[in-house]
């Protein structure tokens, strides 16, 4: 890989040991660059383990705003002897390798094509800090300091971050600054600086925030009025529950009584979690759960019940690499098929695909409105990369006048004015029928909820014709849903292209970067970002309007591509998969390589592809 890095364009990777408190130092590094106005992205690569195994933190700095993952590490900060040689191997030719030279690396093991930056981190820390409990932590700050010098980072910004992190704790701040300066000074006295690639302030992060998707989902549920959450711990979804709880405790406690306007239950398993969500929604509260693939598998029966019994159900699926004992700490988009078709019998579901934390926030709220409006399960399909890494994104906003769309729910007054209430009567001919909440009216509106085997008035029947009517109405509702779900986002090439790229969720950053690379190379490409199923006419038109379509996704089987073909009846021959499924976020280089393979000559590309 040729190194095209330079000012505001490089990758730094920190190699640490799990459970040694490196996370906060590393985050500080990324945030400093962010506060310097330079776009940055940060990915945690961590093991399925609590303590003692290698963990990495990869920061990409890119002044053009490309914040997808990029391969090729310019500066490796290796503070884990366990992974040191692997880390050295993973450093780019011509790159820099900083390591803790308290234990020097034998000459013969070094690489010629890599610059070595030796710094005795542990020794420095031990020499300057008394309390052994903190030595480990300050070691981390020291390497941040060294990086600051090497990369021209603003010391004042770092100090400011420390002040924000430890408000009023002057002693703590002082010690941290001391460690920081130790690192900065060491670098100044031992190395040439800054490195050829480094940071220069910009103002491209003005107004933006750095937040992870799971926190945004949790906040979205708070603003969307979720009052019941039931969940079962599973990486990488656990922090959705943590965030919901944290913000509920902060924002949803009645100030007068000290009582909670929410109920959160850690259920005994995922089956119970979704059962609780269904029970609560049936009974008129907004309720949701968050889980990952194994949980969705376990919820399969219940999801079908919610589909057929038409109960609003919000489920956040933070996807990880399959299967259950798979790679829980790696990212993938491999639950698309499962989410879309979940359960036995004929079922299809509304899926939402956020691609930024801001969208996690907004779409979580949308999920509740859609679930209530459509009386069906809505699955928010996010993933580990989006959920657990901080992403630069727009601030969260909420329209103060927004009313929740609670859908077709009848009040006692409504019922009093009605002739007949039929729970499954398609009064409005949109496939969506009216429902009542238990306890509403003393003599009207009660009905018995079950899967199928019932007629329009919710009476038990095993009549085949009634079954078919109901199934067909559910399809009509599916049609209605097409106009209600978020529309795709288009990234048109002004010159009009024959090649179209389709992407969604966390493939977006790299897909957009790939598009700009390809356009720079002279290839015309249009882009479409999917936001939801079912697909609207616009999605179909995009596919029909292009000769060749690439669907970029992070799974082995091209799952979204299959769903597109199934739903839209387009010719599979013109729809080409660009796939990545090694558990790491997809890169622009990966995408462009695949596209070029299929379209060797940019100019005549689309013609050839068919």
């Amino acid at each position, binding site marked *: 890989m040729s190194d095209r890095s330079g000012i505001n364009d490089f990758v730094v990777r920190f190699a640490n040991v799990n459970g040694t408190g490196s996370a906060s130092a590393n985050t500080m590094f990324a945030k400093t660059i962010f506060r310097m106005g330079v776009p940055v992205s940060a990915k945690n690569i961590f093991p399925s383990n609590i303590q003692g195994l290698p963990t990495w933190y990869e920061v990409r700095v890119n002044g053009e705003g490309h914040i997808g993952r990029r391969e090729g590490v310019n500066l490796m900060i290796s503070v884990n002897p366990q992974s040191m040689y692997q880390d050295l191997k993973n450093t780019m030719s011509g790159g820099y390798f900083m390591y803790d030279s308290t234990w020097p690396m034998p000459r013969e093991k070094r690489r010629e094509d890599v610059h070595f930056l030796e710094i005795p981190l542990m020794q420095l820390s031990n020499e300057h800090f008394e309390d052994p409990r903190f030595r480990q932590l300050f070691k981390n700050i020291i390497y941040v300091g060294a990086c600051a010098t090497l990369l021209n980072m603003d010391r004042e910004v770092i100090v400011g971050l420390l002040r924000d992190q430890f408000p009023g704790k002057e002693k703590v701040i002082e010690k941290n600054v001391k460690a920081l300066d130790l690192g900065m000074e060491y670098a100044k006295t031992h190395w040439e600086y800054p490195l050829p690639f480094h940071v220069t302030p910009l103002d491209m992060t003005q107004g933006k925030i750095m*937040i992870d998707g799971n926190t945004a989902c949790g906040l979205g549920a708070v603003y969307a009025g979720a009052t019941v959450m039931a969940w079962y711990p599973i990486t990488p979804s656990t922090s959705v529950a943590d965030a919901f709880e944290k913000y509920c405790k902060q924002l949803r406690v009645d100030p007068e009584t000290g009582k909670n306007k929410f109920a959160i239950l850690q259920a005994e398993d995922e*089956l119970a*979690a979704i059962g609780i969500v269904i029970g609560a929604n049936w009974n008129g509260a907004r309720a949701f759960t968050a889980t990952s693939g194994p949980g969705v598998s376990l919820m399969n029966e219940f999801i079908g019940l919610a589909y057929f019994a038409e109960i609003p159900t919000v489920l956040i699926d933070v996807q990880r690499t399959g299967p259950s004992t798979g790679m829980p700490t790696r990212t993938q988009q491999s639950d698309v098929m499962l989410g879309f078709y979940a359960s036995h019998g004929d079922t299809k579901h509304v899926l939402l695909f956020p691609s930024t934390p801001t969208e996690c926030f907004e779409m979580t709220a949308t999920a509740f409105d859609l679930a209530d409006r459509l009386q069906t399960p809505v699955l928010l399909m996010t993933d580990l990369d989006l959920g657990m890494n901080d992403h630069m994104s727009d601030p969260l*906003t909420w329209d103060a006048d927004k009313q929740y769309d609670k859908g077709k729910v009848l009040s006692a007054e409504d019922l009093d004015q009605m002739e007949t209430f039929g729970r499954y009567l398609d009064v409005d001919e949109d496939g969506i029928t009216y429902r*009542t909440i238990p306890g509403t009216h003393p003599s009207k509106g*009660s*009905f018995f909820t079950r899967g199928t085997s019932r007629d329009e008035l919710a009476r038990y029947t095993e009549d085949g014709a009634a079954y078919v009517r109901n199934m067909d109405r559910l399809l009509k509702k599916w049609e209605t849903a097409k106009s209600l779900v978020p529309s795709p986002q288009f990234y048109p090439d002004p010159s009009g292209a024959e090649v179209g790229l389709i992407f969604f969720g966390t493939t977006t950053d790299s897909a957009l970067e790939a598009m700009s690379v390809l356009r720079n190379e002279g290839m015309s490409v249009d882009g479409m970002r999917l936001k939801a199923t079912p697909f609207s006419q616009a999605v179909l038109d995009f596919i029909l309007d292009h000769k060749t379509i690439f669907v970029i996704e992070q799974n082995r089987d091209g799952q979204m591509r299959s769903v597109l073909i199934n739903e839209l009846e387009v010719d599979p021959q013109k729809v080409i998969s660009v796939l990545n499924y090694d558990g790491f976020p997809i890169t622009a280089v990966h995408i462009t390589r695949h596209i070029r393979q299929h379209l060797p000559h940019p100019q005549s590309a689309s013609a050839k592809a068919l």
Partner: protein
Amino acid sequence: MSYKRPAFRHPDAAINEIGFHQKDYEGALSTLCAGCGHDSISAAIIQACFELSIPPHRIAKISGIGCSSKTPTYFLANSHGFNSVHGRMPSVATGAVMANKDLTYIGVSGDGDTASIGMGQFAHVVRRNLNMVYIVMNNGCYGLTKGQDSATADVGSSGKAGVPTMFSSIDLAGLALELGAGFVARSFSGDKNQLIPLIKAGISHDGFALIDVLSPCVTFNNTKSSTKSYTYVRDHMESTSIADFVPVKKEITASVQPGESKTIEMHDGSKISLSSIAEGWDPKDRLSAINAIHKASLEGEVLTGLLYIDAAQPPVHKLLNTVDAPLNSLQERDLVPSQEALEEINMGFR
């Protein structure tokens, strides 16, 4: 909102304190086998709710799958009902209770539904102390799927297929006691006099109330060799006590003799009075109840009645410290935090 009564009523038919007839608590015609124990339990539920004067629409009925779980269609037609999936009634009920603390919740399940596929959810709903009555219509077999043994079938007992059970049986009342339930009772579908007051007491209990009701399956498990047959249960029933439930608005009647009876007050002031309490057993002592069950079972007897009660255990909404209004009644103004809060949150992520 007015309580509209259906047009025609027999003038003589009794009405309860809130003006409802017994008929208002009935359901659709049962499609269970003639003689099925479950139908008698439905009748007892109807009677209990009528006598307690609960407005029918303030009751929610939730069940799993099975002949037993079908019964909510056959009682309380004016209540919302939910026939969910097999073994998962407890979780659906949990969600419902979370959403609205103010309704009365009746959960109905079978022994297969609870003790096999639903075992995990059962154990955990007990722990959670939901405010609900959990009725197991326990026939020791899988009625709806045609008579397989359930986990509550006693060792050596056999149903229509004639194959004696070989694995040790699960005593749901014993299990609930072990798991910390605050109200545990057992009864028999054929004993209305015992069952109705127990259901009433269970409904009034502010927390989780388990009533394990032996309910013979006439079609598949009413054999001579079954320990869940009408004959066997009738012959081997042993009562801890004769229960009499006294709602908050009524005085304790003279029928309960002091000295030989014990009266337990519920959170709402209503009382359950227990006469002729079995020796050495104290309805407020968990361990004594556990011992009594085990001893009876060793002798092949079935201990019925109110086995244990702790009226003071905090129910789930107290544990969760939720607001007084039902969560499902909260509106945007209650739920949406301020704009400033969001701005401050954004600031924290800069």
